[in-house]
């Protein structure tokens, strides 16, 4: 596909799906997210099967404080929103807007990750090591896998932002930004499930 | 291929009738549970033989009728399909499957039922690497490797495991259920006839998986009560056995008792040996000879790799002989 930077005025209205490569990437990424869904479903299933296995260690009631998790949820939801703004900018041909909103998304993602690390650190000092109980192992695995996804997403988006800081929007990088945002929405949705299944159910039920 | 297929139905009948040992085969059921399962096996087999006959008949017709003859170059008609045929070969299998599914669901529920009404006995079958412990909570006794049961009595079995997953299978009496660590499974069986039924572990559990055999021994209810009463006692007060065996008993107490119980004394890291003298095989699978017994005691890993018994390779020969004499004297049914 075209190597040169396409003049922004000549870009088609949906640059992320204008080329066959872009369409392939787009469709392939949706399939990938389908697989990721099963991946997280398996982790949720494991967690639900094991969350009663507290043995002598601390359980959900002793650990979770909702205010912190609520703040984390809000931060991640907001970052999803800012990534939507980025795509709107892209569709309007406002490349600068795309970059700025993506950087905001990254910043929010980092804030979330920082709070998650703090949260784990707290639990650890509360006596919940990774090997303490089946509950502990499955909790850390589920939430930690999500955290790893967030970290990977941040690394990915930052790479794109640095690589394309000066190129302007092209038919090559439009699909890249688009699927990165798709991925970001996905991990946001997964977090909503974690918030409900792990924290709310752990707190209430 | 052709010849083989022509032989198949004969082989079928021949094998079903002629093969397998009465105390081991699922095809020669010796109790109500295995009977129920065998009737389902037969039902499914008949339906499936019907399917096979239809498919094979069509197949052979096709092969002979529509083979390419030399010089034939006609282009066959390109048929798209046939709605009526499609409906037929969708509906008939559904009907056949329903004929099988309904009795199966009924049997599945019946087999899962735990009926502990008057007279039923509960046995806890606890699997270890690589031996079986049978606990009789009602009689407060524990037996190793051989599960004595009274005939014509409903036996409810609770399955447990202390290490990996094993499975309790006595083909002639009942299909298997798994012994899963952390979970108690239940099943039941009944034996109308006296006899020794062979049992096997059916779930891969380590190198000696194939040697993890056991026996279900059905005896008349009176004999069973005698057996159970005697199993609770330490047999033979002083003077009841030969002096030689008394010597052996001292050796046993010094070396073995911490793991192997006799009566209600001793540990249960290994099989209970109260009725060891009545065993017809040693270690679950070896012919019951003194030589095999000594070999096993001197090097258990050699004969049952991966088991937890320490080796007594250095035991002096006279001690060994006395120990064996004592072990062989352990009987509860004489």
């Amino acid at each position, binding site marked *: 596909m075209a190597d040169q930077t396409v003049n922004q005025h000549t870009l088609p209205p949906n640059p992320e799906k204008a080329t066959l490569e872009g369409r*392939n990437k787009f*469709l*392939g990424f949706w399939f990938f997210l*389908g*697989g990721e869904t099963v*991946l997280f479903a398996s982790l949720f299933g*494991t967690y639900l099967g*094991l969350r*009663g*296995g507290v043995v002598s260690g601390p359980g959900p009631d002793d650990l979770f404080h909702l205010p912190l998790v609520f703040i984390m949820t809000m931060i991640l939801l907001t970052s999803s929103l800012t990534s939507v703004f980025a795509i709107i900018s892209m569709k309007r041909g406002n490349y600068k807007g795309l970059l700025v909103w993506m950087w905001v998304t990254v910043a929010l993602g980092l804030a979330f990750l920082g709070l998650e690390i703090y949260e784990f650190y707290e639990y650890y000092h509360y006596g919940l090591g990774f*090997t303490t*109980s*089946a509950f502990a*192992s*499955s909790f850390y*695995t589920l939430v930690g896998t999500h955290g790893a996804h967030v970290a990977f997403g941040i690394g990915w988006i930052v*790479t794109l932002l640095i*690589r394309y800081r000066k190129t302007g929007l092209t038919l090559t990088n439009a699909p890249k930004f688009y699927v990165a945002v798709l991925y970001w929405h996905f991990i946001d949705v997964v977090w909503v499930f974690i918030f409900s299944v792990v924290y709310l159910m752990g707190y209430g039920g | 291929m052709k010849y083989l297929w022509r032989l198949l139905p004969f*082989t079928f009948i021949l094998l079903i009738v002629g093969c*397998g040992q009465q105390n081991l*085969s699922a095809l020669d059921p010796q109790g109500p549970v295995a009977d129920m399962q065998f009737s*389902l*096996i037969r039902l499914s087999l008949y339906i*499936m033989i019907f399917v096979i006959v239809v*498919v094979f008949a069509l*197949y052979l017709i096709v*092969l002979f009728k*529509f083979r*390419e003859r030399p010089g034939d170059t006609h*282009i*066959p*008609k390109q*048929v*798209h*399909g046939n709605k009526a*045929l*499609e409906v037929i*070969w969708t509906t008939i*299998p*559904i009907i056949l*499957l329903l004929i099988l599914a309904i009795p*199966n669901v009924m049997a*599945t529920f019946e*087999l*899962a039922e735990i009926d502990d009404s008057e007279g039923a006995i509960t046995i806890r079958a606890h699997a270890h690497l690589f031996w079986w412990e049978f606990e009789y909570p009602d009689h407060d006794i524990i037996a190793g490797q051989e599960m004595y049961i009274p005939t014509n009595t409903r036996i409810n079995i609770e399955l447990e495991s202390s290490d990996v997953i094993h499975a309790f299978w006595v*083909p002639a009496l*009942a*299909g298997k259920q798994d012994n*899963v*660590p*952390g*979970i108690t499974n*239940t099943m039941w069986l009944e034996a109308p006839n006296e006899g020794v039924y062979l049992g*096997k572990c*059916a779930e891969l*559990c380590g*190198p000696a*998986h*194939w040697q993890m055999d056991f026996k279900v021994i059905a005896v008349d209810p009176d004999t069973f009560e005698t057996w159970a009463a005697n199993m609770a006692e330490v047999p033979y007060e002083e003077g009841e056995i030969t002096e030689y065996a008394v010597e052996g008993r001292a050796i046993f107490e010094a070396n073995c008792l911490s793991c192997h119980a006799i009566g209600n004394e001793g540990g249960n890291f290994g099989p209970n040996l109260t009725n060891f003298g009545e065993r017809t095989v040693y270690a679950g699978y070896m012919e019951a000879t003194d030589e095999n017994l000594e070999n096993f005691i001197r090097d258990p890993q050699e004969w049952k*790799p991966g088991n937890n018994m320490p080796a007594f390779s250095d035991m002096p020969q006279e001690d060994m002989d006395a120990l064996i004499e004592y072990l062989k004297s352990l009987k509860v049914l004489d």
Partner: protein
Amino acid sequence: MSNAKAQSKSVLWDWLTTVDHKKIGIMYLVAGAFFFALGGLEAILMRIQLMFPEFSFVPAQTFNELLTMHGTTMIFLAAMPLLFGFMNYIVPLQIGARDVAFPFLNALGFWLFLFGGILLNVSWFVGGAPDAGWTAYVPLSSESPGTGVDYYVLGLQVSGAGTLIGGINFLVTIINMRAPGMSMMRMPLFTWSTFVASMLILFAFPALTIGLLLLMLERIFGATYFAVDFGGNVIIWQHLFWIFGHPEVYILILPAFGIFSEILSAFSKKRLFGYSAMVFATLIIGFLGFMVWAHHMFTVGMGPVANSIFAVATMAIAVPTGIKIFNWLLTLWGGRIQFTTANLFALAFIPSFTMGGVTGVMLATSAANYQFHDTYFVVAHFHYVIIGGVVLGLFAGAYYWWPRIFGYKLDETLGKWFFWLFLIGFHLTFFVQHFLGLIGMPRRVASYLGGQGLDTMNFISTIGAFLMGIAFIIFVVSIFTSMKNKVTDADPWGNGRTLEWTMPIPTPEYNFAQTPLVRDVDALWYEKYEGDGKMKAAEPLGDIHMPNGSILPFIMSLGLFISSFGFIYYHEGFLWLAILGLVINFGAMFVRSIKEDHGYHIPKEEVIKGGK
């Protein structure tokens, strides 16, 4: 990078960096055949051990390693890669595409599979192979001493990632890359079954990924999911494994169904009977494949309600499978059947697989399953479906597509020897095993006692295994002795129906000089009898865009390979190696991400020259 520059590289470099789906397909076939031979050897060793009661040919521990590696190798490293080989080579040709959707990822998928397979087999040389069965039930696997199971976990994790990538690639290729006129309902059945199998891969493999991740964390980092004393549960593994494992069976068998559909139709010179019913049945089987996993667990104590539901759901799969069998028979009906070796394998499949299918229904009968489960009856059943279905399909496909892929026909005389010996050996080996199971022989036993009625049939079974081994040797010999039977005709069987028989042999790098216009199911056949025998072109001749080769897939896979050793020997202080490997992997990903690669063009003149 220009085309001329690419050609100047050495042959080895060319294969290491190729992103051509045809070369990747060939590499899958070669690697898969190697692992197939290895798995076969393991099987022969096991059968020798079981030839006589209480025989001591191999120790029990080794036997457990053999049975684990035989299953794992055959499923993950032989059957699937061999099918992937055909899918890679044939599917783009069948849909009229110049390439797959993601050539780079396609190469990555292959190298991940190969490095994963090598990793798994390294275990033989460093303290013992995995010994807990291909199902690796915990706690046997989580507590298995040594590093064998660690190799299992990481080897499958690496190769499984490759499979998942391959699956996504096929899905997008089939949806987005079809030639004009090739609607979904005109796709050849092999392409259809590849599509459905890829769907199954996509939704089944992540469950295995998680299962393996948990097992790795438990074994290496002390997690407690399966440790009962810590509140763990050992049944979770079985659910995760079979949520993957049952669809896996259909991932294997559906493409084989596709191969048979192509071959039976081609060699009876008839259109596939009930095309839409066949497609529909494939979809239904794929869907139901996800609903029945717990029929592998009837004896773990799920209770009668779950057992009944899974029993009935499993029986339901017999209906679409039956539809397929009858459609194949009716495809042959009224045809002009030619008994080539390819077709012999396809024809032998029908009765063999039917026998495997009916024992499947018997196994689904939950109450009777308590007798069948974990006995040689099960061993007989799944070998009847896997060999009678998948392996016969692979050999049929090999004979059928061999001239397209390798440019020569395999010798028919040797082929028939191979076929008959293999088929007789197969039935001899496994038919008696049904009865061995029913009369009291559990599966996965390293030996059995004499005098229990098991001796004769075990001996017969071993003889059958020898026959299969000899047959396979004949096949390998014929690969080399047939090389002189060169073909150049685009349609060497003379009765090709689909697009893979429309381009010259050897297949040009760009597959189609002009993208074909598809006017019916069996596009080529349609043109032969309704048109002028040649495909209509959907575009004028022009420059053809091709992707560049890349060494990065190889490096990324190598990184994960190195990293795996770091994890396996984590407790010996090799964490640094794990990190190093990941750095290599992510570094290569990073390079791939920032370096834009737009491929190159083959000029029109060269395309015209190549067509002549």
